[in-house]
């Protein structure tokens, strides 16, 4: 059977209900919460602050040290705490995406610590994490060119869908499922992070990119509203 209707009844270009808020962690310099439906993430930013060990310091710029962490209770089967191969990779790509918007030359030899905690996972955790981290960085008063917004675009069977959830990620009928997380900057709309899990023809990829662009535009609106003091909860 072809994929004519999404499993959770959303439209093909519809995001899950979003939650967004800043200032959720009082002890951090900046913090934010972001949720796509059941995927709930908090991010905390500390710094710029002195970096130790000193051999990690860069003499001409600061660095971003990112830690993506799935909490043991965030998935149905208990996740082993601590860094895994997967979480190390996601931490790295998140740090790379964020480094391209932050002005790191202001405080050479320092570190900006970004902690991303996945409280509850239902696919698209890295996208929710990047969205929360972007808000938390802004909230921490870090000098940055623009914000970033992230969304995962899927090709489920032959349909392009926005904001993939776990059930869609596991869909195996027809052409199966492809998951493409995109991260776009808010102003110049350049891609700062892109991954692809599955396969997709070039023509469909262009379609997916356009879908990501419109979805990121929507997400940005939520991020801006949350930063301006609103507590967004669509659930």
């Amino acid at each position, binding site marked *: 059977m072809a994929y004519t209707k999404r499993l959770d009844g959303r439209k093909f270009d519809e995001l899950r209900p979003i939650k967004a808020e800043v200032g959720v962690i009082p002890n951090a310099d900046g913090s934010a919460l972001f949720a796509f439906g059941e995927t709930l993430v908090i991010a905390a930013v500390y*710094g710029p*602050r002195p970096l130790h060990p000193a051999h990690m310091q860069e003499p001409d710029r600061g660095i971003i040290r990112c830690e993506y962490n799935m909490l043991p209770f965030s998935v149905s089967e208990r996740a082993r705490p601590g860094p895994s191969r997967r979480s190390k990779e996601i931490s790295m790509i998140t740090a790379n995406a964020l480094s391209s918007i932050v002005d790191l030359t202001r*405080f050479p030899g320092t570190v900006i610590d970004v902690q991303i905690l996945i409280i509850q996972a239902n696919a698209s955790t890295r996208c929710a994490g990047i969205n929360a981290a972007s808000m938390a960085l802004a909230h921490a*008063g870090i000098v940055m060119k623009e914000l970033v917004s992230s969304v995962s675009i899927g090709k489920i069977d032959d349909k392009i869908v926005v904001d993939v959830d776990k059930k869609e990620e596991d869909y195996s009928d027809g052409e199966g499922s492809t998951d493409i997380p995109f991260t776009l900057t*808010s102003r110049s709309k350049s891609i700062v992070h892109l991954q692809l899990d599955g396969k997709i023809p070039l023509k469909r990829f262009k379609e997916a990119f356009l879908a990501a662009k419109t979805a990121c535009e929507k997400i940005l609106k939520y991020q801006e509203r949350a*930063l301006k003091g609103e507590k967004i909860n669509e659930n």
Partner: protein
Amino acid sequence: MITEKEIAEEKTERKLVVPGELIVSGDYLPGDFTRKEGNDIIANRYGLAEISGRFVKIIPVSGVYEPRRGNTVIGRVNDINFSGWIIDIGGPYSAFLSIMESPRFINKMNLDEFASVGDVLDLKINTVKKGGIDLTLKSKGLGKLDGGRLIKINPHKVPRVIGRGGSMINLIKEKTRTDITVGQNGFIWINGDLEGEKKAEEAVNLIAQEATTEGLTDKIEKFLGGKDKWEVH
């Protein structure tokens, strides 16, 4: 974004902007934390955008302490080496207080006789260089702060804690009968009896929390007022 109409009506009310947001478009000059792209002035930081004449700038509302020369700060001794003290003043870099900058003679072998690890000092920033921050004690009112407690708030909220002409801080001092020193880095030292210190700490945290509300002095007065347990029976 700030519209033409608002400028015409001279509503210089500050607006909260996020990084990458268009603040205003037209013949303007970019000031602090803004940049120019064509005719647009874009925000580089989260904060309050303000237009004065042709000049656009952003007043930060959050973020760590940015050390400036001449600032009076409070710090805690982190470490001691043979030539001075390494001091945590918050912010991106730790600071150094040289033995030469102390107001009286100190034996090189016994630096911790003057200040040991964990002690709190009231200091002034002498220089801010690429390699670090140098502090001094050679100025009026600086020195070691004995006893009391050290609390930390966001440095951008310090002006609010002090109030216009020191009105807010004097109010707290008076009502709680404590001695309070506020550093520009957001470190605040409170000394008094236990009850007073507690009350003062709560008051300071309340101010930091509600820094944007108006009529804050009245609110704090009410908070500190209530029963005046300091009356002598």
